[in-house]
């Protein structure tokens, strides 16, 4: 198992490296380099051309002045710079989107190999949003990856164009261009990273505060406290704004390195050229090449402000693929023991108790989703916490209290339960769950599209769809136990009674050949549902 997880971690790194070596990135780098070269050449050659032309005009040597080459270079540079920028954007996005597809699948597979009991905390609250945010940061890094070779090429060409003015100006320019990213890196680390991190923390604190206070929305309304609560929130938000303001100032410093660097380096190059007695035309070439060379560093230098966020995102994503090595125990048979109640295969138990007493915890601990039920829970004589998740998943079909339905059709949601289900299977399960009539009444039947979280359905319909899905996991996947958490919530008494009747018949006629039918553990508040079970345990 640990070998598998390690391989996945390597895969994630490999996906990133692969994206940076993909043909699209190589193409993007190539055109970015061409655009940077053209940008430097356009300014430098134009300056040299002007000066040369003026001197030739003054000297009356117009006929001897070769204007064809520089004017062609200028026109070519204009076209190459434009095309280069367009294709750089297009191809770097192509590379990023291709990598994104792989990173998403890789991340999903990585998480799907972890034990859900270990990564539960990752998925709660804002967890999923943070994961997708981290993936977006990586995408951004890939889009920016051509900036480095472009900066390098632009810098090298600028130095080369400064050489005709003499070795000294060229060396000054080279030293300046080399210093630029280092100064920028220092400015980013000193003025940007800390405020950026603080702003992120403040944003999270603000969100937590708002969520906390929205939980007391009834008191806010009843006591007329919205004004005071808003003021408290605004005070916290002002702290966020202040942190963001510091970050913007830091980014201003970072950008100032570039903005001030270009003209000052151009002035320094021209000054050294003047001191060493270079000609006007070559000095013009060198000075404008210096300005263009600094401009070519722009995207690369500005990206230094995102280095820290990028490193943090990459570290978080890499941290997902930890190893869950445990000496798993192997259950002997399918008998259950739940808080002292023994159930043979095919047994049926109802869990009752006040809300908050831990019924859901028991159901979800049996399913291997969490490990915090205080009761003794044994499968085949072994504590379920010591049984590997994949084994538990093959034993239990669960319809949880708050089922996660996927964005997709009704059929997509049902087919999650098992591979190779045909429409007759789906309808049969919907009939038992008393949802078939509802689905028939939907505009596209089984093909009706459900949005994120199936918000179109009522709470009761969502519960019954999840029930139908769990039933399919028993019939299609041969699981001996059905776990239900408040299956009749949101149903009227008549529908509830009908569902209980159909479910009872279904339990009797399914099962894995023991003749005892399918086993059931159901948590419920409702007395009618308890008609399904042989034994009741009050938690």
């Amino acid at each position, binding site marked *: 198992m640990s070998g598998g997880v390690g391989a996945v971690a390597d895969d994630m790194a490999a996906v990133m490296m692969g994206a940076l070596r993909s043909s699209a990135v190589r193409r993007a780098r190539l055109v970015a380099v061409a655009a940077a070269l053209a940008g430097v050449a356009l*300014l430098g050659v134009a300056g040299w051309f002007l000066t040369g032309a003026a001197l030739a005009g003054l000297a009356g040597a117009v006929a001897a002045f070769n204007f064809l080459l520089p004017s062609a270079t200028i026109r070519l540079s204009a076209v190459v710079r434009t095309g280069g920028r367009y294709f750089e954007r297009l191809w770097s996005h192509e590379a990023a989107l291709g990598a994104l597809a792989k990173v998403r699948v890789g991340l999903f597979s990585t998480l799907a190999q972890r034990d859900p009991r270990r990564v539960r905390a990752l998925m709660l609250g804002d967890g999923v949003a943070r994961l997708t945010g981290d993936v977006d940061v990586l995408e951004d890094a890939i889009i920016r990856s051509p900036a480095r070779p472009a900066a390098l090429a632009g810098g090298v060409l600028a130095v080369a164009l400064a050489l005709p003015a003499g070795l000294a100006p060229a060396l000054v320019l080279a030293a300046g261009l080399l210093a630029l990213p280092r100064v920028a890196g220092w400015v980013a680390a000193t003025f940007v990273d800390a405020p950026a991190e603080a702003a992120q923390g403040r944003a999270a604190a603000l969100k937590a505060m708002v969520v906390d206070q929205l939980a007391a929305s009834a008191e806010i309304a009843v006591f007329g406290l919205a004004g005071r609560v808003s003021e408290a929130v605004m005070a916290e938000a002002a702290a966020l704004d202040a942190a963001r303001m510091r970050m913007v100032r830091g980014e201003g410093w970072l950008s100032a390195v570039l903005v001030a660097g270009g003209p000052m380096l151009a002035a320094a190059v021209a000054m050294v050229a003047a001191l060493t007695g270079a000609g006007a035309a070559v000095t013009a070439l060198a000075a404008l090449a210096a300005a263009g060379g600094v401009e070519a560093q722009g995207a690369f230098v500005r990206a230094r402000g995102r280095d820290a966020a990028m490193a943090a995102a990459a570290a978080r994503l890499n941290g997902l693929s930890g190893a869950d090595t445990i000496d798993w125990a192997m259950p002997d048979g399918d008998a259950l023991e739940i808080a002292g109640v023994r159930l043979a295969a095919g047994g049926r138990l109802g869990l009752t108790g006040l809300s908050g007493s831990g019924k859901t915890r028991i159901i979800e601990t049996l399913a291997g989703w969490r490990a915090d039920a205080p009761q003794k829970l044994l499968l085949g004589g072994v504590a379920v916490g010591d049984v590997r998740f994949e084994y538990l998943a093959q034993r239990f079909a669960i319809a949880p209290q708050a089922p996660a339905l996927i964005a997709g059709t009704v059929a997509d949601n049902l087919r999650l339960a098992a591979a190779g289900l045909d429409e007759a299977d789906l309808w049969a399960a919907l009939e038992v769950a008393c949802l078939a009539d509802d689905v028939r009444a939907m505009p596209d039947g089984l093909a009706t599209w459900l949005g994120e979280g199936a918000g179109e359905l009522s709470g009761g319909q969502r519960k019954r769809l999840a029930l139908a899905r769990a039933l399919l996991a028993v019939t299609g996947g041969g699981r001996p136990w059905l776990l239900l958490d408040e299956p009749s919530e949101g149903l009227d008494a008549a529908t509830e009674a009908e569902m209980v009747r159909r479910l009872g018949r279904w339990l009797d006629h399914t099962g894995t050949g023991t003749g005892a039918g399918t086993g059931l553990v159901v948590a419920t508040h409702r007395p009618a549902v308890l008609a399904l079970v042989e034994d009741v345990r009050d938690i």
Partner: protein
Amino acid sequence: MSAGLAALAGGSGAASRRALGWWILDVVGALLFAGGLALTIGCWGGLVPVTGGLLSMAVSGLVRAVAQARAADAGMQGAVAMKAALRAERLPALFGSAFARGRLAGEDAARAVDQIEATEGFAARFEPLSRAARVAPMLVAGAVAVASPVAAGILLVTLVPFAVGMVLAGGAARVAADRQLGAISRLNGVFADRLRALAEIRSFGAEPRVARQLASASDEVATRTLALFRVAFVSGGILEFLAALSVALVALYCGFNLLGLLPFAPPEKLGLTAAFFALALAPEFYLPMRRLAAAYHDRQTGEAAALALAEDLPPLPVLAAPAVFAGVALRGAAVDYERGVRVGPFDLAVPATGLVAIMGATGSGKSTVLAALAGLRPLAAGRMDWTAGGAAAVAWAGQRPLVMAGTLASNIALGRDNSGRDNSGRDNSGCENLAEDDPVVARAAEAAGLTALLAGRGGLAAHIDAAGSGLSGGERRRLGVARVLASGRLLLLLDEPTADLDAATAAALRATIIDLARTHAVVVATHDAALAAAADVRLVMP
């Protein structure tokens, strides 16, 4: 609403005008550089002009660095002002109506935080840059015209194909976006959606199938997004092309003018200094528009967020606390929710004093009954009759009572003196100082069983933070009960007062509540059989 957002961003006009001022100084910096370089090259060999020129170039760098940093700063100040104004306008209504609207807390929190943050870039960057893009190119053209009117004319003439190209490309991009964006955002959402359902997917062993789905959805996102970008990037390409073309045209015109080789008779004879000045300024002409294009994403994000923020929030009824409460009766009452879900009809008579228990399964509508009594949910059917007087302000304690930064006393006093004030009323400044000395607060704290907490914490003046750190679930619940008592209101609504508490804490709180019901009308929504057993009136929701 984009007009609304622009008005809001412009509403912090002073900051935006300051930003424009700094961008104009940036143009001055560009003039210094072009002038310095032209002087240096044009008077090559002359000590004074070259020294002055070099100095001017070096200074221009500093001027532009300061100007651009200050412009960003001013833009951000405008954004901070706009966000503060948005919060002041939206948050009270959002918090005040949150319960009545019954949305998911996540959705409201996103509106209160994320969507307001999403407008930042619009005010901080897009708005000042769009002002600068209207002014700065004309200043540059004007400066070029001083040296060479023809070069300035060339720059201005390139605006014609630029405008035509942008309109055509913008139209094509919109058509492409309309065709693709819906599908792209839906497919993009699949990733987060499947991560949220990961537990179920794994329990059903569906991960290989879902991974395949994800791969094909992501590939389709890539294909469709690229199709969109191929068109969308064209406007950027046009801008880049004309920026490069204008520099090339100015360079070629000036060069051939200097050589005297133009195929037409130019109206001017350029010197090297003038020509160089025009050339060095030429890239500045399109620069403001290139900056604006880079901030275009800020505009889209800001407008989308503004649209989400614009939803009308229902106003809240303002009820006065009555001097007497003599009972209220709900007859055939029903409350409607979205998608045709109806709770009720139900009948309930709440006496002047005594304990009323509302029971039923999770989701059966217990909280709805409380909301109807509080006037937070309108009745879709039936009637509510008050025995004496009109609708009265009630007191409410939830499962996780509100805690604000302040003292224990100020938190208990939150329910006092707010009646008759609307939800944006702010005039509570005097309350906090008085709360510790308020005998009503002290009595309420004692009656709610907070004595032990007070002893351990240092009395009513003990400080608590906004997260309620250090308060146990039971203590927080008691704080809510104390607040209800201190409010002076006579109809007390308690939502699941004993849920999720350990047996001893629950028993103590139960005793407190039963005691309260001797002097107040107390309505509890509860699963607690022991509490329900002590009730004078019971309503079981089906």
